[in-house]
């Protein structure tokens, strides 16, 4: 989720931002769009007068997380242009702006019978910069720092980025390579380098900045926002759809380190890690009355990274059993794998959830969400 009072809302407190989104009895939704400099992500021109509307969507499990579908009534630099749509919310006194990511605009579609010209444009996450094939085999030698290898790629692909340096000292114990036969993309390589050090896949933020940071299990993350059906602050629509899927959900996980350079069989604590869900929730061993095991191998830097990878796998498996499709009032703070608390008696009270996909209509229609219960 976007930081509540990050720029361009830094003139307000987080409480004021929350009050506008949640508490205000009336909101007026505005839309805008600007072109941005591909090298700096700074705005070059505001083209809001030519924005006819559209939607912004994010699927946190998608390869390219962000998409937008916009109506633009002007010629653009379709081949290389990058735009940043935004939404404004106002209560009549205070107006706040929320950037909604940076997108390439490569597929304008125009109806020849329409005048003046208006393009329907499918826009793709600026992360697409990394989705180009490498075009050859790619390898990173042993003893290279993982994050340094990632940064070299981001610089080479002309990305604006920020990297959490927690794992700066982690180096490849053995070379990693991506053969040309697999047609790797830069995104494949970057995420392949981040996995072994317990980092989440790279993603782009609301301004278009690429973010590289450690993975934290959703259950261990603090809730970023509470959505309640309390009559004074509810922005939850009245039609949640709940789907439960128990099919083959594991409750025991075993991970092996497959790039272990020591010529010894992996054992617990040295190349092997096992965890189980004994009693937490409906998919636990206690609840199901049986053990369902998943075994995976990982390219990881050390035992700690193996543990992180197995815990991440377990957390992901445990979250797929209950999905909720819900609508809320427009909330342009939503972003990547948001961690939320939903208090709704129809869902059994307070539920901890992960917002895995959402779609925001720039004209203020209630936004759609796909949530997984943690």
């Amino acid at each position, binding site marked *: 989720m976007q930081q509540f009072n990050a720029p361009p809302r830094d003139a307000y407190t987080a409480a004021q931002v929350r009050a506008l989104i949640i508490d205000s009895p009336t909101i007026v939704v505005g839309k805008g769009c600007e072109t941005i400099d591909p090298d700096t992500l700074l705005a070059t021109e505001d083209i809001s007068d030519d924005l006819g509307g559209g939607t912004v969507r994010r699927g946190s499990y998608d390869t390219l997380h962000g998409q937008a579908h916009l109506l633009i009534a002007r010629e653009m630099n379709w081949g290389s242009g990058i735009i940043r749509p935004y939404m404004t919310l106002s209560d009549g006194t205070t107006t706040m702006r929320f950037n909604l990511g940076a997108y390439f605009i490569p597929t304008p579609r125009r109806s020849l019978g329409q005048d003046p010209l208006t393009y329907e444009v499918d826009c793709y996450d600026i992360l697409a910069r990394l989705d180009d094939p490498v075009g050859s085999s790619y390898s990173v030698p042993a003893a290279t720092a993982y994050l340094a290898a990632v940064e070299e790629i981001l610089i080479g692909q002309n990305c604006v980025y920020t990297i959490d340096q927690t794992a700066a000292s982690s180096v490849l114990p053995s070379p990693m390579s991506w053969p040309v036969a697999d047609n790797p993309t830069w995104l494949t390589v970057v995420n392949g380098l981040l996995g072994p050090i317990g980092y989440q896949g790279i993603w782009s933020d609301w301004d278009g900045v690429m973010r590289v940071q450690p993975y934290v299990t959703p259950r261990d993350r603090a809730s970023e926002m509470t959505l309640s*059906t309390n009559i004074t602050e*509810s922005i939850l629509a009245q039609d949640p759809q709940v789907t439960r899927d128990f099919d083959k959900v594991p409750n025991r996980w075993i991970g092996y380190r497959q790039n272990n350079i020591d010529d010894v069989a992996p054992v617990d604590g040295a190349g092997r890690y096992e965890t189980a869900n004994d009693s937490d929730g409906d998919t636990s061993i206690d609840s199901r009355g049986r053990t369902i095991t998943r075994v995976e191998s990982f390219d990881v830097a050390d035992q700690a990274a193996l543990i992180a990878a197995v815990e991440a796998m377990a957390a992901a498996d445990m979250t797929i059993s209950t999905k909720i499709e819900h609508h809320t009032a427009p909330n342009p703070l939503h972003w990547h794998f948001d961690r939320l608390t939903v208090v709704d008696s129809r869902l059994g009270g307070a539920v901890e959830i992960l917002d895995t996909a959402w779609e925001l209509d720039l004209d*203020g229609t209630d936004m759609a969400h796909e949530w997984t219960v943690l």
Partner: protein
Amino acid sequence: MPTLTLTAVWVNLVASGAGVSAQSDDSRAREYADAGEVRTYGEGRQRAVTAEGERGSFGFTLVDVTEDEITTLRDWKSQLVQVRDHRGRKFYGVYFSLSVSEPRVLLAANTYTVGVTVQFTTYTEGS
């Protein structure tokens, strides 16, 4: 002393300045509206959500309009026009349809009554 009330309306095509003018009846009406609604959320909370941007329109009925003028007004559908009335009001907008009918009282041979609703557009003079 008799009072002469001018109730003419002038319609000009902005692109060329060409105009059509006629007397109008007294049904001239402006409307302004926001695209908003009051929505119901959990536990019955009622909350208004509105899309930014006021929509406005000006409806009027021209009387004693010739067939040639109707042809001109038909050509101007969907194009930016300026509308002025005898009160000194001026609006910019477009209309997408004309409602043409025969007058109950014929003022001149082969003339018609024409209903128009101009929907306002954002326009800056001189731009």
